[in-house]
């Protein structure tokens, strides 16, 4: 008996929705077996990683806090991925956005009005977009692969952050530790919206999810992005500019990453230091694929990934698995969702 792949005439709608769910379920099952085989409490591990964060209400705020930047970044990345523009440098744009926002804060320590948040956030968006403009420029002018350039720029951004917090922006009252001065009260957003567990970033992510949904499903631009990705020659025929799509998707995804960066800095950390980069930009790529590049899917996938982060930390204290476990579960999930893709386009036939 052999299993053969047979191409479907049309992508399966059912599989499109079923495979992400199946990926999560299989991650849980494989994870349980794997961790048991490695000598840990497999069931306990998956319970803590996937279920405790949902069941324990006091963990909701942590999940929401982790989910906000992931969703914001992944919304932008999904748009580009639909056009087959692969921005994998969101981590760098996230840092660049935070730096640009912090620059505004750094220049305006005396401003006591909360309105200063607005220019900070705008600067964050622009900073992220500017960092993404470099690969966009190189791609459209010189046909340079954006995967490579955006990835390289992550490491340049990391060094830039390191330079600023150990050098010119170092807090003079910080006992010489590598960090900027804390933002002033006016420059800070609250950790969460008063009376709730929801961080401001998640509200913005929700609103933007609706906006992206509208754009992707209802606007000509959303159509253009999909056509450029799926059928470049048809797109040319229809008069859609491939270069314009590269520019717009990279600027939008960079801007979203920058927005996530400055919101994280001003609502959660309250300053910048060497520990600021947290790999959200890379994890958001998993979120984007797990969410099937759809804004609503991305929102849900962002929460699922946030759950594995939070749960991974819980599992360390309760079932004593190493911190690397969370990463293994995330990688497994991404492998399975990518493998599941094949079922959308093909059917399995037994011969």
């Amino acid at each position, binding site marked *: 008996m052999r299993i053969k792949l047979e*191409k479907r005439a049309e992508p399966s709608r059912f599989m499109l929705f079923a495979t992400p769910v199946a990926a999560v379920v299989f991650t849980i099952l494989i994870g349980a077996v794997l961790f048991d085989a*490695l000598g840990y409490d497999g069931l306990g591990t998956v319970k803590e990683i996937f279920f405790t964060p949902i069941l324990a209400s006091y963990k909701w705020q942590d999940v929401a806090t982790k989910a906000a930047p992931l969703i914001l970044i992944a919304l932008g990345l999904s748009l580009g991925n639909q056009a087959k523009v*692969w921005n*994998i440098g969101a981590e760098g744009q996230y840092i660049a956005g935070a730096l640009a926002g912090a620059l505004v804060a750094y220049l305006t320590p005396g401003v006591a009005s909360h309105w200063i948040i607005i220019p900070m956030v705008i600067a964050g968006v622009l900073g992220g977009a500017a960092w993404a403009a*470099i690969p966009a420029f*190189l791609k459209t002018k*010189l*046909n*340079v*692969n954006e*995967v*490579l*350039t955006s*990835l*390289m*720029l992550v*490491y*340049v951004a*990391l*060094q*830039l952050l*390191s*330079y600023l917090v*150990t*050098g010119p922006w170092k807090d003079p009252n910080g006992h010489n530790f590598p960090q900027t001065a804390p933002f002033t009260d006016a420059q800070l957003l609250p950790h969460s919206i008063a009376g709730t567990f929801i961080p401001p970033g998640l509200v913005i992510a929700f609103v933007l999810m609706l906006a992206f949904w509208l754009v992707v499903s209802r606007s000509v631009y959303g159509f253009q992005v999909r056509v450029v990705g799926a059928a470049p020659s048809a797109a040319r025929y229809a008069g859609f500019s491939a270069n314009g799509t590269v520019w717009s998707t990279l600027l939008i995804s960079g801007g979203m990453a920058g927005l996530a960066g400055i919101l994280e800095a001003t609502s959660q950390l309250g300053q910048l230091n060497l520990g600021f980069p947290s790999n959200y930009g*890379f994890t958001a*790529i*998993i979120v984007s*694929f797990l969410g099937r590049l759809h804004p609503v899917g991305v929102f849900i996938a962002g929460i699922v990934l946030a759950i594995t982060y939070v749960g991974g930390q819980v599992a360390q204290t309760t079932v004593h698995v*190493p911190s*690397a*476990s*969370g*990463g*293994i579960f*995330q*990688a*497994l999930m*991404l*492998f399975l969702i*990518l*493998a599941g*893709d*094949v079922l959308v*386009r093909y059917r399995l036939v037994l011969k």
Partner: protein
Amino acid sequence: MTMDFIISAIVTVVGISTPILLAATGELVVEKSGVLNLGVEGMMLIGAITGFAVTFTTFNPWLGVIAAAAAGAAVSMVFGVLVLSLGSNQVATGLALAILGIGLSTLIGAGFTGMIVPQFSSIFPSVLSHDPFWRVIFGYSPMVYIALAIIFAVGWVLNYTRAGLVLRAVGENDLSAHSIGYSVIGIRYMAIAFGGAMAGIAGSYFSMVITPMWAERMTAGRGWIALALVVFAGWKAGRLVIGAYLFGALMTLELYAKASGFQFLPSQFWASMPYIMAIVVLAVISYRDRTGSEAPACLGKPFLPNS
């Protein structure tokens, strides 16, 4: 500056460049076949822990290196099956491989922290390997010569043999290679396995040659520099060697500058140089040749013969 001083500096540069060169050589072959595998860092760490663990158990570093290569190749097959047989996205799959390798090496390595292993002995007589002058040629770990032999073999195969021609054809135009009867998928599988094996060996260089020990994430991001190096070299084997030693020389130069109290640019500038240089080179070669033909034309694209 004495001869001895210069020779010592060269020895340092060669030592620090070798693992990057090893990993980049593997990735070069992978990319030449039209596949982009971003999981180098993860495969290196798998190689580092496997090489260490096997050497620790067998007391034989040669077995350790072979095991590291095998482990690197094995873990790269996860990537291979996904992107080749199931047609999944290469960028995302490669990143997942990097995450998996970092996590898995940590889990496997938990019991090996603080252990020590026997080291390679020199393959040349001590008269040569410890000679103040001749050590510049004979004074390295055997892995250094293996790395050089492999890169020269790869360069030769790529440029002067039929196998290399086929590999490049698969990377440049998979559909025509397919139509004249070559197995695009089969060739790419082999390229990915080779890339994994090389990354594995590169990882074992950290845990067995530079510092014979195991520590989590001990490759400290060299896998990403290897990716930058392939780009910097413009997908050419000869430039890969030059680029690897140039990257190593830059880092060493910075260390000398610091130790001599001579520092006219912040160290972060130097640390970001490999990446900036890779971007600049990429831009320059693309500017010279608007078709971007230096990069394999099919790089990162799935092979879809029926669509």
